[in-house]
């Protein structure tokens, strides 16, 4: 039986006393995708994931994970998902081999089958060399690979990753994502929460939760085209100058500039469509800064989230 949508949530809500941590979230995640789940800390990301994993009961609404109800079929959900938390949550005093042996056993694997599964996940994440040292002594990147191996040991069709790359180096981060793509290609679904925009860029679907509400969803391309991200009468340009931080201060003060931010050595502007580029150049020269070039740009995902968040804060 192939499930088309591995996650289906309708009006999913969780309250803690008078505080609503997750407020009527509707979400559908199709099988085989990498779904990115974004939002500031405290916006309700972890609460939402915990409800989907069957460890937290929803206060209202309902959801299914792999076809099982999150309110009533929690143990069936637990059998059918993998979970990897942001902090390393395997046993530090046990070796990777012992950790995998334990978690495999918990999922009912034993004997030859367990051995084969361990072999295959170890091969997959490339952990062969580190199998016998205490897991606590592994570097951050290897710890995450071990955690992923443990999450995959029972071949779950859906894996939840809660900020899997927080605090690990860029190379390890890149190779972890490459691995996720490989696995998604084989039909696995990943539900990933993250703060990294480059990671969000790679997802096939995105959801952005803010103040307990899921306020944006769609593919990265769809989100960038949203009208509220580029309001009528505005356009985005990138400006190259010598002293970007001085340029930023100068340009931010201008009336026709709605938003300005530094990206690498450039200043990205959201400005009135009616105002010509020459006004920008003039303002910079006034501050003693010759500009090396101006070009129109698309909004980045960061622009999307920042613009939408700010416009919500204003209202």
């Amino acid at each position, binding site marked *: 039986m192939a499930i088309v949508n591995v996650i289906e949530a309708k009006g999913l809500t969780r309250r803690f006393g008078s505080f609503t941590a997750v407020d009527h979230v509707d979400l559908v995640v199709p099988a085989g995708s990498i779904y990115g789940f974004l939002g500031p800390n405290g916006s309700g990301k972890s609460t939402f994931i915990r409800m989907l994993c*069957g*460890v937290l009961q929803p206060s209202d609404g309902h959801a299914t994970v792999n076809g099982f109800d999150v309110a009533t079929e929690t143990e069936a959900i637990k*059998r059918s998902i993998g979970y990897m938390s942001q902090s390393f*949550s395997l046993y*530090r005093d046990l070796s990777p081999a012992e950790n995998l042996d334990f*978690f495999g056993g918990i999922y009912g694997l034993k004997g030859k089958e367990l051995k084969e599964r361990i072999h295959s996940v170890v091969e997959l994440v490339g952990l062969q060399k580190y199998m016998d040292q*205490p897991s606590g002594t592994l570097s951050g990147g290897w710890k995450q690979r071990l955690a992923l191996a443990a999450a995959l040991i029972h071949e779950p069709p859906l894996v939840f990753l809660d900020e899997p790359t927080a605090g690990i180096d860029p190379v390890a981060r890149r190779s972890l994502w490459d691995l996720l793509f490989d696995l998604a290609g084989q039909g696995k679904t990943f539900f990933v929460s993250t703060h990294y925009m480059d990671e969000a860029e790679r997802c096939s679907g995105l959801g952005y939760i803010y103040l307990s509400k899921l306020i944006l969803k769609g593919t990265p391309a769809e989100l960038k085209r949203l009208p509220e991200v580029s309001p009528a009468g505005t356009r985005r340009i990138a400006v190259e100058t010598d002293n970007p931080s001085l340029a930023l201060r100068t340009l931010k003060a201008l009336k026709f500039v709605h938003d300005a931010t530094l990206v690498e050595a450039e200043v990205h502007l959201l400005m009135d469509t009616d105002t010509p580029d020459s006004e920008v150049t003039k303002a910079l020269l006034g501050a003693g800064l010759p500009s090396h070039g101006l070009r129109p740009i698309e909004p980045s995902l960061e622009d999307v989230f920042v613009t939408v968040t700010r416009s919500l804060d204003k209202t």
Partner: protein
Amino acid sequence: MNGFWSVVRKEFMHLRRDRTTLIIAFVLPIIQMIIFGYAINFDVRHIQTAVADLDNSRESRQYLAELHAGEYIDYVANVSSPDIVAQMLKNGSARVGITIPKGFARTMLHGENPQVGVMIDGSDAQVSVRARFAFVSPPSKLPPGVADARINVLFNPDSKTANFMIPGLIAVILQIVTVALTAFSIVREKEMGTLEQLMVTPVGRLALMIGKLVPYAVLAMVELVCVLVLSNLLFGVISRGHLLTLSVMSIPFVVASLALGLLISTVAQTQGQALQFTQLTLLPSILLSGYVSPRETMPGWLYLISTFLPATHYMQITRGIIVRGAGFTDLIPQFLALIAIATVLIVASTTRFKKSIA
């Protein structure tokens, strides 16, 4: 019971890695046995005694000499008046005062019971009890007419402290170690974040509880053997009953104590709290279990509380088997009580432990 054997294996692995716990688990009982075993000694002898022998006759001197031969009494002063004797008791330089009145020898020669004034310092209960012994079992010949009570103490004829304290101590030590072992086990997983991972797995709650208990139960049984060997080497305690019976009857006690630790572990939020809870269970187990003073002397409500303590029943088992040579059938009520307590504690901790948040 999903994942039971995996949990058992995992806990054994933790135990093997955790040298500190292992060392504490074995060194702690040794230290406790030495401290408790030597410090708590009720074999009071050679009590400091002041005498005012107003008669100063051959008979009075012989009476005093015979009292001294009983080993309970040591003379530290021979003074001229009962007032000085009383003063010495007050300032602590003597624990017992004996006043032999004038005419002691004459009364005796008339074939009557002479009166001897004895003062005993009651501020130390053990001393006062033992001092009485010196006069209860009176000198063999003198004074005639005093009832010669032949007291026959069964099982522990010398009333040696070690013989009844050490079997009780075995229960206390075993409890201290076992409760502490499991009290940390779930809190530790909470603090390390590994519980978060366990919660999203299909591991059974009962499997987790009992799986965590089994390795420590094995450890505790090994410890029982150590403590028994130690009590023999240090205090010469030899069990009159069968050691196999003792081992079998120890199992429900060990399980009950470990389950008490598990319950603590599900209640406590941090390892610090677990430690405090553990200490909280310790005092009642020592004071209410009948280890120090007989339960019969307790008020009814305390007696009732002590019925629910595993140590209370196990104390009766260790003393029964080791001191009295009791067999399995003699101790079935205690054995069943321990099984009942263990079952209740396991059910309670399993119910308390939730595989979900809030």
